[in-house]
């Protein structure tokens, strides 16, 4: 016990020296290595890791490259459930709006940039996978009567990426398991045993995020935070944020009581409207210039 207390004291000193996040992972991995090499018991390692976790959340330690590979696999899994809407003009248009908005966000740089696709389904749904892979359904786009409303939908999804919500769905234990595997084996390319172990953690990580994106949804507070981020991003490029209100009102009219997609995973449009109202108060009624209305109608004619 005295040993543990001393270890904790030193941990605190290191936190002062280096900042909390780094120490969280360093101590965690240090504890894993020590446990794996038999220097301390597993119980001791767990105890040190618990104090380390208070210092830094596990998901913050994943690099953008990790996010990218997780995001690719998540996207492939979602596309295994939905067909892609193969309309070149519509896809290019959604990417023009989406990538332009992403550039105005607080996190314009991901490992390989933001990319958008449309899902060929009537279901009202959208997914933002880590790394900036964003999928929106035809059903959701039909809730948008003009470009600014579509911008609101896309900015909300960029908001989820910017705020790290997808990565936040990963159970904290995954990272420490990963640390235990590769912290011992220092080779860049994993050997068979380490690969099998890392693959298992990867499967678990993908499972955590899929479950959140497809079944349970984010916490309501995260949805409200993404709405708020969307308003900020829209304002930065000059889109009228009142379009978010219009889009949510349209959605409220279209979303049935037993709808899947957003009906299952998101707070109701009414609740979102209520929550975003104070932010929108000063921004007035949306007036959409004809040029934006025209290009939206042209590109989205068949949606």
């Amino acid at each position, binding site marked *: 016990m005295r040993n543990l207390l001393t270890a904790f004291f030193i941990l605190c000193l290191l936190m002062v020296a280096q900042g909390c996040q780094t120490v969280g992972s*360093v101590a965690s991995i240090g504890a894993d290595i020590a446990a794996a090499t038999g*220097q*301390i018991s597993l119980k001791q390692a767990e105890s040190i890791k618990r104090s380390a976790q208070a210092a830094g959340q596990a998901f913050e330690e994943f690099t953008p*490259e990790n996010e990218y590979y997780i995001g690719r696999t998540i996207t492939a899994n979602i596309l295994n459930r939905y067909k892609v809407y193969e309309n070149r003009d519509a*896809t290019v248009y959604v990417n023009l709006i989406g*990538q332009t908005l992403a550039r105005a966000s607080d996190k314009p740089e991901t*490992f390989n940039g933001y*990319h958008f696709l449309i899902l060929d389904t009537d279901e009202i749904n959208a997914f933002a996978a880590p790394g900036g892979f964003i999928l929106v359904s035809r059903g959701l786009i039909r809730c948008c009567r003009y470009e600014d409303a579509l911008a609101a939908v896309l900015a909300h999804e960029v908001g989820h990426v910017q705020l790290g919500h997808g990565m936040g769905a990963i159970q904290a234990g995954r990272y420490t398991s990963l640390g235990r595997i590769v912290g011992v084996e220092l080779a860049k390319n994993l050997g068979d045993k380490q690969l099998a172990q890392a693959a298992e953690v990867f499967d678990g990580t993908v499972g955590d995020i899929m479950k959140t994106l497809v079944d349970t949804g984010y916490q309501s507070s995260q949805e409200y935070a993404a709405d708020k981020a969307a308003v900020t991003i829209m304002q930065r490029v000059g889109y009228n944020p009142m379009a978010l209100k219009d889009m949510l009102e349209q959605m409220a009219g279209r979303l049935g009581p037993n709808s899947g997609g957003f009906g299952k995973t998101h707070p109701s449009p009414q609740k979102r409207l209520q929550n975003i109202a104070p932010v929108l108060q000063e921004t007035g009624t949306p007036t959409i210039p004809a*040029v934006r209305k025209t290009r939206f109608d042209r590109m989205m004619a068949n949606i």
Partner: protein
Amino acid sequence: MKRFVAFLLILIVSSLTGIVSGASAKDMTVQVNETQLRAMPAYYGAVVSTVNYADRLRVIEQKGSWVKAVSLRTNAQGWVHISALTSKRLAPKAGAGSAPTSVSTGELSAAEKGFTEQIERDYRRKNRSIDFTWVDRMEQITVTPQQSMSFLSEGGLRPAEGGVQ
């Protein structure tokens, strides 16, 4: 007691990386696949040079979310968005054109060694029904800052930069 001392040593050695990088806090690493150094702190500024994953940059000044920095590999100087950088050290990809690095594998973050291309290859081998074709295709759809700029001005909108406001 001996075990405890051994553990402490490991803890301190593991921490050393962080302390060393803390001492040269003005150096940062590119953490995205590729990005540009620009003449102005804005995406619409002219491109001075391209920097790659794991390139080390020396920070000269910061303005909002933009950092003016010099590439320690090419000596090119320009502005880059802070979200492209990390204070950690990263190892260059195999086959990348970067100069040899002094980073040893021991200094890499655990996660960096974890979920990489090797894991995706393994995942695809085991999950043949999961098709990555459209994931690859969507990554090809790239809007340049110039295209963003034209799109915005044509729509009566204005360019903006993340975080600068």
